[in-house]
């Protein structure tokens, strides 16, 4: 599974306080989601792209993630220009395509990619370990942080379990096809995976009890808020205010 590969780096963004990065990812995502006009959305995408460049991430991996996200947007881009009422721009296979539809599809595309870029720059540049700690420092309910942290910790182990179950099945001649036999086998594999997870959970809990676990998530890594983090936080807030003001001024330029 492609996981924390983008978190290994030495850029300024990688070494920024994860608490600042989490807050900025939240503020900028909400800001971008609120943008209504294409000019400000373009600006947001450009800003997101600059952030990703600034983080000096491996190009292939980053591009691969953006391609995967855009794959899901394909349906929107293919349907919305036809289904939005408005002024007809041209006809495609005798179906009218409207300017408003094109604008809406473009707007969804810009916003989705801008938010993805912000998330890559601010969230993917931290390890889950430091994000969980940052969430705890930001007073997110402790149980939720623990759930997040433990789930992440065991996903790889259960993925290996699934690999073993799959190997066992294929050694016994299992070849997936469209048949009830396949579905039943996959159901049993799912059941086996859940039981393995449950039993490991019991053992993990007992091992933790032996070491004095009482539900408290002790914070071992403490972050230091440097002047540089303050500058980045301020720049992020100024950028989101600028985007909102720009959106307010330019909203009605296109097509309306």
């Amino acid at each position, binding site marked *: 599974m492609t996981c924390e590969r983008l978190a290994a780096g030495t850029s300024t963004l990688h070494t920024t306080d994860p608490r600042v990065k989490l807050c900025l990812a939240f503020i900028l995502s909400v800001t971008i989601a609120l943008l209504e006009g294409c000019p400000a959305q373009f600006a947001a995408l450009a800003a997101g792209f600059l952030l990703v460049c600034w983080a000096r991430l491996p190009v292939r991996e980053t591009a691969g993630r953006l391609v995967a996200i855009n794959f899901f947007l394909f349906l*929107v881009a293919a349907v*919305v220009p036809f289904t939005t009422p408005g002024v007809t721009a041209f006809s495609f296979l005798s179906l009218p395509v409207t300017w408003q539809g094109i604008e809406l599809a473009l707007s969804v595309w810009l916003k*989705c990619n801008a938010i993805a870029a912000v998330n890559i720059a601010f*969230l993917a540049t931290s390890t889950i370990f430091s994000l969980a700690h940052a969430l705890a420092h930001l007073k997110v309910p402790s149980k939720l942080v623990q759930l997040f942290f*433990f789930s992440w910790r065991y996903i790889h182990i259960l993925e290996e379990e699934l690999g073993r179950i799959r190997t066992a099945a294929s050694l016994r001649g299992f070849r997936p096809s469209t048949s*009830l036999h396949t579905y039943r086998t996959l159901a049993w*594999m*799912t059941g086996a995976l859940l039981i393995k997870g449950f039993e490991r959970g019991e053992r993990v*809990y007992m091992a933790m009890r032996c070491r004095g676990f009482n539900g408290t998530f002790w914070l071992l890594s403490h972050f230091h808020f440097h002047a540089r983090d303050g500058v980045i936080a301020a720049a992020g807030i100024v950028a989101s205010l600028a985007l909102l003001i720009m959106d307010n001024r330019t909203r009605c330029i296109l097509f309306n």
Partner: protein
Amino acid sequence: MHISEGILSAPLLAAGWAATAGGLAAGLKRMNAEKIPETALLTAAFFVASLIHVPIGPSNAHLALNGLAGILLGWSAFPAIFTALMLQAVLFQFGGITTLGVNTFNMAMPAVAAGYIAAPFLRSGRKSIAVACSGITGAMSLLASAFLVALTLALAGESFSSIAGMIFIAHLPVAAIEGVVTGGAVSFILKTKPDLLKRRA
């Protein structure tokens, strides 16, 4: 099955977060310290199980298993599904922070309902009834999620209403398979480790 960033309006996103906050509060309240590692391991297991691709004719679908999650976890399905979606957002940037609320609610609310509906049949002691009812609730909860996703998209505006319809129809065959897999998994668990089904009650 999730709604991408950039589609929904602010009121819908806020409503999704409000509803999910309520569900999370209910789920976390019922999850004491003892249950945290177990719930986390089951969350991880569901996350990994959703990577299993199921062949349907020439195409394939991946399992969501939200009904089974509700049957095993009850209200804890809310924090479990929230965690899984949050990991997706952080690890692959599928979905993001603003849609996390509405996407969690669309998957988790039918899961919790499935848990409540299946519980009396699982306690009935009749294996065939337990398996059949889990299968039906598994299929219904996926359909309910597809319906909620379609409803959310329809509320987002006229432009998305035909996509909403397509999404719902595309999930009809997936729901049938979810039902078979949920029933099969419950049957396997009843045979192998019935404790897993009792932990919720």
